[in-house]
């Protein structure tokens, strides 16, 4: 009897051991995970370092996506819109709005902890998310501080000042962890201030280096600005980080900053260990339309006109699609991807040549695109399967004004958008031609784009519908009305053999998956 009972228990134990994987110790985001994210993780803002926002997952396909259903939804119960891209590490999702971080179980959507520390200073316009290094999170607060937290419980380890909020700086971006550096950028546009990228020690919070995009305020005939609003990308083989810089200030009046205004509206390549500039490519010389170049610098390896190339691609806010050789910053292609009327042409090095007659004027200048640009901060995706760069574009027109009475500080003029719409565009990177396009509504959509190896393009429209499109032709395969504005970029992951697609709208995070049997 006893032996039978023991035998039963032994058998049960064996079955349990077979059925239950060993409980893994939480690893956090170690260097290997950041360099080679597994399918059950999304350890950085872009997922991997490339900025492609493309997943190899294939469980959800064009054939079965019409069965996609809600796995769970998480409500922040706050009015702030979710603009962050979640991280997923060790089965836990981390996402943010200004002053708030949530840690959520990626399987069930229930809350593990919530960091909620209101700040009164700095613009609270949005937060793009956290970064992770080992078991630590890094969060940029509106009052221009970088806060490090323990990922286990959200307790604060340290807090350091990144910029002086009283001068008009704030922070909203998701930091980028490269090696033992936390790279942080700064925001600001209403003051004549210099932009910069700062590398911070993830253990101590000490500053390691700082790269300034423009000279100090007050330098004669020199620009200020070049804010570093968004998260860059990284090529570990070349050991270069790629970052977009913002527009010059004064914003709409360029008279006090003659010339190109380096390094505003530029894509820069920096050594992450030293902050030394390797090269820079300016996408908008002498900008007077607020078109920062901070849209994701997407890294793609492949053939360009028959030659293997390490490329960098950006659909820039100024309306041009750029393909660069990312080893040296030389132009491979510059082509408009929508209505653009502010340039006289493209110079030999691939830079658009601004038309002085299209600078803001006292009686107004009709300009395409509008101030929001032909695209903005939401992520594009590079679909490696079809060789297409897919972007949420915003064909648009506006009127720009500036007169001497507007002064030479901050905005220094006025602009009013006249008309715009949203179009998801799939661009052939070899030619800049648009392979397919999909209209997403008047005004424009705020949704970013995710593509998958199975042939899906996940995005959203201006009315708040989440959309799954066929990546080969842009046709709609699935949709769900979300009930609010979509102003974030989707991610995907696989847990326990089940693929999830995460999208947010308003203040709600939605997880979608195929029904379980």
């Amino acid at each position: 009897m006893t032996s039978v009972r023991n035998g039963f228990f032994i058998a049960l134990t064996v079955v349990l051991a077979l059925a239950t994987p060993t409980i893994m110790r939480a690893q956090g985001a170690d260097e290997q995970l950041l360099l080679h994210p597994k399918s059950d993780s999304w350890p950085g803002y872009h997922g991997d370092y490339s900025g492609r926002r493309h997943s190899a997952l294939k469980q959800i396909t064009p054939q079965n996506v019409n069965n996609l259903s809600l796995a769970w939804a998480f409500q922040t119960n706050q009015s702030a819109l979710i603009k962050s891209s979640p991280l997923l590490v060790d089965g836990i999702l981390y996402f943010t709005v200004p002053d708030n971080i949530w840690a959520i179980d990626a399987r069930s959507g229930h809350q593990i902890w919530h960091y909620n520390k209101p700040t009164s200073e700095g613009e609270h316009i949005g937060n793009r998310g956290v970064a992770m290094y080992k078991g630590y999170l890094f969060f940029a607060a509106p009052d221009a501080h970088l806060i490090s937290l323990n990922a286990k419980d959200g307790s604060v380890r340290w807090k350091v000042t990144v910029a002086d909020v009283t001068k008009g700086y704030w922070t909203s971006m998701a930091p980028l962890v490269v090696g033992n550096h936390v790279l942080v950028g700064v925001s600001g546009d209403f003051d004549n201030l210099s932009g910069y990228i700062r590398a911070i020690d993830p253990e101590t919070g000490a500053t390691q280096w700082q790269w300034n995009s423009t000279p100090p305020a007050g330098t004669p005939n020199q620009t200020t600005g070049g804010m570093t609003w968004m998260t860059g990308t990284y090529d570990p083989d070349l050991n270069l980080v790629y970052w977009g810089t913002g527009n010059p200030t004064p914003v709409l009046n360029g008279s006090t900053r003659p010339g190109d205004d380096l390094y505003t509206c530029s894509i820069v390549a920096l050594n992450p260990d030293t902050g030394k500039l390797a090269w820079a490519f300016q996408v908008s010389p002498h900008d007077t339309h607020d078109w920062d170049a901070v849209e994701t610098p997407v890294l793609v390896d492949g053939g360009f006109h028959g030659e293997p190339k390490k490329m960098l691609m950006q659909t820039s806010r100024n309306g041009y699609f750029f393909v660069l050789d990312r080893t040296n910053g030389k132009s491979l292609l510059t082509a408009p991807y929508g209505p653009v009327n502010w340039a006289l042409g493209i110079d030999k090095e691939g830079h658009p040549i601004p038309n002085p007659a299209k600078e803001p004027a006292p009686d107004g200048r009709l300009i395409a695109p509008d101030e929001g640009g032909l695209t903005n901060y939401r992520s594009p995706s590079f679909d490696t399967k079809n060789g297409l760069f897919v972007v949420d574009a915003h064909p648009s027109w506006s009127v720009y004004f500036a007169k001497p009475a507007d002064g030479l500080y901050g905005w220094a003029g006025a602009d009013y958008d006249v008309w715009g719409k949203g179009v998801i565009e799939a661009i052939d990177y070899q030619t800049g031609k648009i392979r397919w396009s999909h209209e997403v509504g008047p005004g424009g959509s705020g949704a970013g784009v995710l593509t998958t190896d199975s042939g899906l393009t996940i995005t959203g429209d201006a009315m708040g519908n989440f959309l799954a499109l066929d990546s080969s032709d842009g046709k709609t395969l699935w949709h769900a009305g979300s009930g609010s504005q979509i102003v974030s970029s989707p991610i995907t992951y696989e847990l326990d053999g089940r693929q999830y697609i995460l999208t947010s709208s308003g203040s709600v995070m939605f997880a979608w998956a195929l029904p379980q049997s």
Partner: protein
Amino acid sequence: MNFRQSARDCSVLLTAVFFAGLASSAAQSPAKQASVAPPAAKSYPPELVQQGGALFRKDCSFCHGRDAGGGESGPDLTRSKLVTADVDGDKIGPVVRNGRPDKGMPPFDRTDQQIASLAAFIHTQQNNAVSTGGRRGAGGRKGVDVSDLQTGNVEAGKKYFEGAGGCSSCHSPTGDLAGVASRYQGLELEERMLYPKRAKPKVSVTVSSGQTVDGTLAYLDEFTVGLTDSDGSYHSWRIRDVKFKVDPALNAHVELFPKYSDDDVHNLMAYLQTLR
């Protein structure tokens, strides 16, 4: 920068508003604003204005400017008719709490006291803007005056209206546009001329029985079409179940954008300003 959403963040704006860059302008001409401004500006307790200012800088200033004079994508509130008509937050409060989803402004859940402080701050900024002749505080978006928009040639504008612009194929100076310059001035007239954002196109929906329902387009995405009929009732259908046709007249405005020179815009504006 972005958003600044534009869109960037204009959706919180901006988002998207800057996104994002979705918000539109409700700026008024100063002439009009002056005519409706209250004769004696009300003053508010300094502590209330200070509280409202702190709240405004945190949640509103990216789009509307730190001085409420307009920022990235949000309108200049010191020239807003709604602000002028507001009494202690009775008009401002509902906009703050409900947002303006069609223009990319999100709702903000704020207490009565917070609304009162915001209203006190915005009115104080409006009073300051009037008393300084419209000069704006440092950094924010600036105003556009009626006098800025007088560089065009009336005759050339009339010629463009009747000829190259194709305007006269839909509009008439003695019909729908009679007196238009009395109804709208300055930037508001120019914005409406370039694209009438508030215009709702007509739509005709034919249902499976063959019956046709006409109305004003109330909603349209890839999946659903909705209209408001002549009784003011809302109806909607799945697009796969019906045929429908939206009046394409507004597209003529969009088709003109790449054809306009800046002189064409200024001349057309000069001509429209004669239609009083």
